């Protein structure tokens, strides 16, 4: 057991005295930033895509938009997120002559990636809402868009909230690959501590615990949101 004690000792030394906690805080901040902003972008873009995909298709414009959207979804679901990060950072940015920090790139890529998944979740959510709700809105003179925004999507979101929570959890865990483009996340922070103390067991253990804690907190938040959204349901 004394061996493990010494390992903890080493970890704490680097964590506290050699500024390891700063690195961890930075990593935690980036992990959360990428996951939260990615989710926000994902929800906004994903909802837009989902709305396009459920449009009535007898006119030409919706059909073209629908084609573009299904290509987008296919593209982002068909390649690993690491590949997307690398292509974006090492291919697209230099080609377009843009400069972005690796964290910003991660936010964008994770946002666009989760948008592809969320659009499918949202589409099934929208399609699960009774079509009569749309008719009710249109019959009182509201436009398609207004009815969608005010009536259909709120009900769809309520239906898919558990799945969205899942998506967020997946997103948090997937952010552990952003070190591929040089962003400092939790993994990079603990790796730093590990290599400075020549001791990886404790840092990686703590890292795992932090991920678990994050996920548990998120599940609790999602549950609380579900409860408050369910107040228009029969069961209360």
């Amino acid at each position, binding site marked *: 057991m004394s061996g493990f004690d010494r390992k903890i000792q080493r970890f704490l030394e680097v964590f506290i005295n050699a500024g390891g906690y700063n690195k961890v805080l930075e990593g935690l901040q980036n992990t959360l930033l990428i996951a939260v902003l990615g989710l926000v972008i994902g929800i906004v873009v994903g909802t837009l895509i989902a709305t396009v995909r459920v449009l009535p298709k007898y006119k030409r414009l919706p059909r073209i938009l629908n084609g573009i959207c299904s290509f987008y979804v296919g593209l982002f679901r068909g390649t690993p997120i690491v590949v997307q990060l690398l292509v974006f950072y090492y291919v697209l940015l230099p080609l377009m002559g843009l400069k972005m920090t690796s964290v910003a790139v991660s936010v964008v890529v994770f946002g666009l990636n989760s948008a592809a998944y969320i659009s499918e979740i949202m589409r099934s959510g929208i399609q699960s809402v*009774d079509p*009569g*709700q749309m*008719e*009710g*809105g*249109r*019959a*009182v*003179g*509201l*436009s398609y868009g*207004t009815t969608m925004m*005010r*009536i259909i999507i*709120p*009900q769809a979101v*309520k239906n898919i909230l558990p799945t969205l929570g899942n998506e967020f959890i997946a997103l948090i865990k997937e952010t552990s690959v952003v070190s591929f483009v040089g962003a400092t996340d939790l993994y990079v922070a603990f790796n730093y501590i590990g290599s400075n103390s020549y001791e990886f067991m404790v840092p990686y253990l703590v890292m795992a615990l932090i991920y678990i804690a994050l996920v548990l907190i998120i599940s609790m938040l999602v549950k609380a949101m579900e409860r408050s959204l369910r*107040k*228009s*349901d*029969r069961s209360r």
Partner: protein
Amino acid sequence: MIEVVNLTKCFGDLQVLKGIDLTIEQGEKVVIIGPSGSGKSTLLRCLNCMEDPTSGQVLYHGVDLTDFKVDINEQRQKIGMVFQHFNLFNNKTVLENIMLAPVITQKKKMKKLRRQKDADAEIKTKAQIKADAKENALALLERIGLTDKADAYPSQLSGGQKQRVAIVRSLAMNPDVMLFDEPTSALDPEMVGEVLEVMKDLAKSGMTMVVVTHEMGFAREVGDRVIFMDEGKILEEGTPDEIFNHPKNPRLQEFLSKVL
């Protein structure tokens, strides 16, 4: 007020409406009866273009609703519609259900007025619009005796209550005409009466009404004109007395012998 000219509607290969001509006058109460699948609901849904007609015209105050250039949303604000399955907004309370459309359309109107910079136009603030809509909604709820349900959600109401709320939700837009699509067909027998009562009151107030129903008693009592449809055509129309007491068309005689 509403003029239907040679209206047809197909769902794929199935022709549901086969050339309907119909005129509805201001203040008239028209009841459409007929067997299931006769196209009466489809006809009603074509009147406000909930279903786009395949061919023909629907003229509302002279405006052709089937024309894609017409702002259908603006026209529908003056055409109320009540559905068989109520279609109340499940995520909104009763009060919000009634207020939603008036508030949104008023806000849009104010925005337009402000852009035109018309000095004479009365410009209301958002708070005023909301307050007015709420006052109006509460008055409507009082009329149907559901003031205490203002903050309830649709899922907490009975079928009859839902349908009464759905009726006043349409009324909140001050429509010129109300379309009823089998408003009592999804209700428990006990609750049919309360909904018909609200509709009778509405009829007395002079509202133009087009009602698709299986309630022959209501058709006889309230209707100015009864239309009998079968297989996508109007087979006979006339006063309730003519239709129910002196039916001429054999198909109508057969239908009446079954339902009366």
